[in-house]
């Protein structure tokens, strides 16, 4: 037809460039549709959800009725699609939005990040080899394992790997220092201790120290905690450090200073050391100034030795020093200029918050009253401390608990901790509190001191008042409110006040803007102060916080300083990300709870009077066991082993989801099917008995490329099954389960599987329990006949009732009514294979809604006219093939793919010819409808 009336040409068609089509779904039908459209010279965008095209067929072992090897016949087709110049393969992608109409659809496609660059990957598998994560391989129906970086199957197309990474791990994003807990836990679980500790050290220089004293927010958020108890992450990195010390496997470090710009760090506490460490690793010469005579800050002066042996701390500081960091002690920096004059190009201030807060009550200055930090500092510095018999400690933080336990070790006979809120609000590390309790510390909660009772200026006791909890305050904790007239007295001869610290006003701070509390004001992200080139972090910015926060800030500051010295925008791209916490995929019904490993302790008796370490550390078995509890929430743990292994720089962990916009003239939907969830039939025992498997699992078990290299075994004991039963019509032809129709392929694949079972073991007995054998296609009946005569498959007409397991041998006892003999038979099988019916693919309803096409009652895509246009959907220009509109076998799917391509190409051909929409309607409308419209 020529264009008689050019004016009538749909103007919307004018600006569409080259006519192209969209095919949704890369199974065998979608591939065929794409090829047949592309072979006409049109462009095709083939969108596939999973990393590879091939669909279900790729997982099938043999195909009925010819017993062709599925992979053999499919592989050439896969590469044909991959190499076709007119086909753009968009795997790992999903169609999001569709607008427009036939001849001019606008489609938005989301490309999920595969974290591997398709054009660089050669499919060599080096990344997969070093990947520490193993997860159930969905391609093998979960029977085998794959890595987090994987190729779904050997012939996958495109032949590129995909990294399976989902959202973000709670442990890692909750760590202020950004320690990649999931990665190091995973690696250590594989005894890769050196690699694991390397991961820790990428974030912090203190695996041993933080492994003992960290507040462990990671554990607080650990998803394992949602099921039983969180993973003991802190203790695990302590183990790594212990292991390294014990086995002397610490890697030697050489300074790698290659920059000329010197950086000064003021304050050798955790923040300062962390900053210096990261800067040195970046190649900067760093000098750390410390006003006291030793490095370590509060780690050294405030944390008691029984928690953090000093040799450990010292070694870790030394290790930082080995990176080329210079420590200058006993020097207090007075001004920024002082440093600039000495030639430092950037400064990091981390002077901490060592000033103890006061209670502001009467008698606070009496003899026998200590402030916690001073107290702990004195003890740590081996200075004399006078301590009575009865010690009262005020406060609920770590310093309070430390003070209690230190007092006990110094000989106090009775130590009481007084805290104004309840135990729930106690900010100290719970395990520390627990140990304190074990050691005999008494706790008085909801109690607040109001006056120190003295005699001759010496403490005699504390007058306290009872408290109750009111509404939550700004910190989210419930505010304590004194209960009137509830005062009482606690007898004490020593009192330690541990109600927090604050920043000491020191001359250096005068050069910088500070808050009313004396903390230094910095940019929240970059940590730059009001003074350019001067950065600050740790407690002097945060106020008294935790060690790990300080360490984290040190690292952030190092990044800023590096950028600053390189003349880069120090802020760009560093806005805090919004993370979505990964939820592990756990089947609650099969989850076996396991408590977290307990930390062995010194006996309580030996702790008293002794400052040796209380927590003894995990032994290797415990550590391995505990690390095995990690749920790998995000699958990929970003250990970066793959990045290192890849010679082609093909891995990019920072890849983001992409959105593509496409203009297409026609759309083919080939979204396929999913298998019925056979566990819905409780009586068949799937999921309960190991030797009840699905047909798809059977396919993988007999497949040479499957998890058992093609050895058909029972999952309970690995033995070869000798008597196999196949149960047909599960999730098909059952109105009660809302699957009224026949799935069309199950009879044949059931027979095929039975034949394959006999081929694998000619001695095996094989029975099929069926309702009707529907061997209707080309060569099917002949194959059915052959299965009986040549392969000796036993066919029993009857539904299988209750399945039970014989506990002795894991065999399955089934009851079946043989409808041909009328007798109820009890049969024992050692393997039962259930043939599930087919269902519409997941989310096909969402897609259909987006496309504006109708669905049938069962949820398949409806076709316009079953008789005359069986691949047209209800919407012009959108076609359907394969199992998307109902169950089909492979040849019927392939033919439908070609047919859909044909119909789509009529639209595309009309576009080239510039034909009007009238023409397209005439070509595509089912003739019957057309006639009626015309005759009306």
């Amino acid at each position, binding site marked *: 037809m020529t264009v008689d009336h050019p004016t009538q040409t749909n103007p919307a068609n004018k600006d569409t460039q080259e006519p192209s089509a969209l095919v949704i779904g890369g199974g065998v039908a979608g591939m065929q549709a794409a090829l047949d459209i592309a072979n006409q010279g049109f462009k095709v965008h083939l969108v596939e959800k999973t990393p590879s095209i091939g669909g279900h067929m790729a997982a099938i072992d043999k195909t009925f009725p*010819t017993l062709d090897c599925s992979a053999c016949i499919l*592989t050439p087709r896969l590469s044909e699609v991959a190499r076709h110049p007119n086909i753009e393969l968009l795997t790992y992608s999903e169609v999001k939005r569709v607008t427009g109409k036939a001849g001019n659809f606008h489609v938005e496609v989301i490309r999920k990040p595969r974290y591997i660059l398709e054009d660089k990957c050669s499919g060599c598998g080096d990344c997969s080899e070093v990947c520490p994560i193993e997860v159930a391989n969905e391609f093998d129906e979960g029977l085998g394992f794959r890595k987090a970086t994987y190729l779904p199957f050997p012939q996958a197309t495109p032949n590129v790997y995909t990294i399976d990474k989902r959202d973000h791990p709670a442990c890692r994003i909750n760590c202020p220092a950004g320690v990649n807990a999931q990665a190091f836990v995973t690696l250590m679980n594989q005894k890769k201790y050196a690699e694991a500790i390397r991961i820790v050290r990428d974030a912090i220089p203190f695996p041993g120290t933080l492994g003992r004293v960290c507040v462990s927010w990671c554990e607080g958020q650990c998803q394992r905690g949602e099921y039983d108890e969180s993973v003991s992450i802190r203790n695990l990195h302590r183990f790594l450090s212990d292991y390294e010390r014990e086995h002397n496997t610490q890697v030697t470090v050489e300074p790698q200073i290659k920059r000329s710009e010197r950086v000064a760090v003021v304050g050798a506490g955790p923040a300062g050391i962390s900053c210096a460490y990261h800067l040195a690793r970046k190649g900067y010469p760093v000098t750390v100034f410390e006003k006291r005579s030793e490095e370590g800050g509060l780690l050294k002066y405030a944390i008691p030795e029984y928690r953090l042996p000093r040799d450990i701390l010292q070694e870790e500081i030394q290790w930082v020093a080995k990176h080329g960091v210079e420590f200058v002690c006993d020097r207090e920096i007075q001004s920024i200029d002082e440093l600039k004059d000495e030639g430092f190009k950037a400064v990091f201030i981390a002077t901490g918050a060592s000033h103890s807060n006061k209670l502001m009550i009467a008698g606070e200055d009496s003899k026998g009253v200590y402030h916690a930090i001073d107290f702990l500092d004195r003890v740590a510095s081996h200075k004399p401390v006078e301590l009575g018999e009865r010690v009262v400690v005020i406060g609920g933080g770590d310093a309070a608990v430390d003070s209690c336990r230190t007092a006990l070790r110094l000989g106090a006979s009775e130590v009481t901790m007084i805290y104004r809120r309840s135990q729930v609000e106690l900010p100290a590390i719970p395990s520390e509190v627990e140990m304190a309790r074990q050691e005999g510390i008494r706790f008085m909660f909801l109690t607040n001191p109001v006056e120190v009772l003295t005699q001759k200026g010496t403490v005699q006791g504390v007058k306290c008042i009872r408290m109750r909890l009111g509404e939550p305050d700004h910190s989210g904790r419930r505010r304590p409110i004194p209960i009137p007239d509830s005062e009482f007295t606690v007898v004490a001869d020593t009192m330690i006040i541990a109600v927090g610290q604050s920043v000491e006003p020191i001359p250096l701070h005068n050069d910088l803007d500070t808050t009313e509390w004396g903390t230094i004001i910095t940019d929240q992200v970059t940590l730059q102060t009001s003074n350019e080139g001067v950065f600050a972090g740790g407690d002097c910015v945060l106020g008294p916080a935790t060690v790990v926060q300080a360490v984290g800030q040190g690292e952030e500051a190092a990044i800023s300083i590096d950028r600053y010295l390189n003349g880069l925008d120090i802020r760009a791209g560093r806005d805090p990300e919004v993370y979505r916490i990964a939820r592990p995929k756990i089947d609650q019904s099969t989850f076996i709870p396991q408590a977290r490993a307990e930390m062995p302790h010194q006996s309580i008796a030996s702790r008293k009077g002794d400052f040796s370490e209380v927590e003894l550390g995990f032994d290797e078995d415990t550590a391995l066991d505990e690390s095995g509890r990690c749920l790998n929430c995000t699958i990929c743990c970003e250990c970066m082993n793959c990045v290192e292994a890849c010679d082609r720089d093909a891995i990019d962990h920072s890849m983001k989801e992409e959105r593509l916009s496409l203009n297409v003239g026609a759309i083919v939907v080939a979204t396929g099917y999913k298998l019925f969830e056979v566990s819905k039939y409780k009586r068949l025992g799937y999921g309960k008995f190991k030797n009840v498997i699905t047909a798809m699992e059977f396919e993988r078990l007999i497949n*040479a490329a499957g998890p058992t290299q*093609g050895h058909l075994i029972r999952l309970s004991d690995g033995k070869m099954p000798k008597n196999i039963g196949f149960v047909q019509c599960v999730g098909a032809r059952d109105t009660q389960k809302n699957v009224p129709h026949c799935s069309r392929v199950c009879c044949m694949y059931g027979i095929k599987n039975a034949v394959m079972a006999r081929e694998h073991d000619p001695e095996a007995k094989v029975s099929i329990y069926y309702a009707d054998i529907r061997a209707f296609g080309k060569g099917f009946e002949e194959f059915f006949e052959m299965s009986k005569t040549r392969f000796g498959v036993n066919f029993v007409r009857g539904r299988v009732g209750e399945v039970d397991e014989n506990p002795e041998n894991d065999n399955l006892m089934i009851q079946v009514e043989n409808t041909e003999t009328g007798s109820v038979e009890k049969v024992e099988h050692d393997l039962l294979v259930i043939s599930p019916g087919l269902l519409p693919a997941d989310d096909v309803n969402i897609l259909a809604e987006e496309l504006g096409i109708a669905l049938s009652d069962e949820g398949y895509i409806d076709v316009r006219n079953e008789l005359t246009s069986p691949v047209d959907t209800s919407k012009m220009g959108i076609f359907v093939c394969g199992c998307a509109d109902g169950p089909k076998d492979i040849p019927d799917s392939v033919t439908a793919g070609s047919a859909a391509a044909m119909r789509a190409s009529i639209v595309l051909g009309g576009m080239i010819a510039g034909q009007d929409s009238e023409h397209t309607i005439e070509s595509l409308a089912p003739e019957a409808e057309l006639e009626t419209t015309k005759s009306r």
Partner: protein
Amino acid sequence: MVAIATTSKMDPDWEPRIIAYCCNWCSYAGADLAGTSRIQYPPNARILRVNCTGRIDVEFILAALDMGADGVLVSGCHPGDCHYTSGNLKARARWALMEKVIEQSGVNPKRVRLQWASASEAQIFADGVRTLIDQVKELGPIKREWR
């Protein structure tokens, strides 16, 4: 100028030399998969790719033995699976005749092996290579063999 490299069974370093003709569609792909799956097998075989086992003239096998191959493997698609419909059936018939002739001539027919290995049967392919090599090792260098 070429000469037949001589080897001897006495030589402890003697390794059989195997020519393996594989069809492009099944066994060559199966051998590829063996590699991709890192299935390890002895390195004695040299694979020659032909389109179809039907391409294999009996002379290719006999000449290889004549030139000093200690064994010859032919590996193709399973009967019924031939990419070209039936080339493998013709190969199989030729093989049957040839095997008998080889035996009649006094050469142990265990030096030659015809196997079917599909593109997904990497293990079967590798096992087949190993089986032939084991058989040939048992027999020793071909030049010494005489019934």
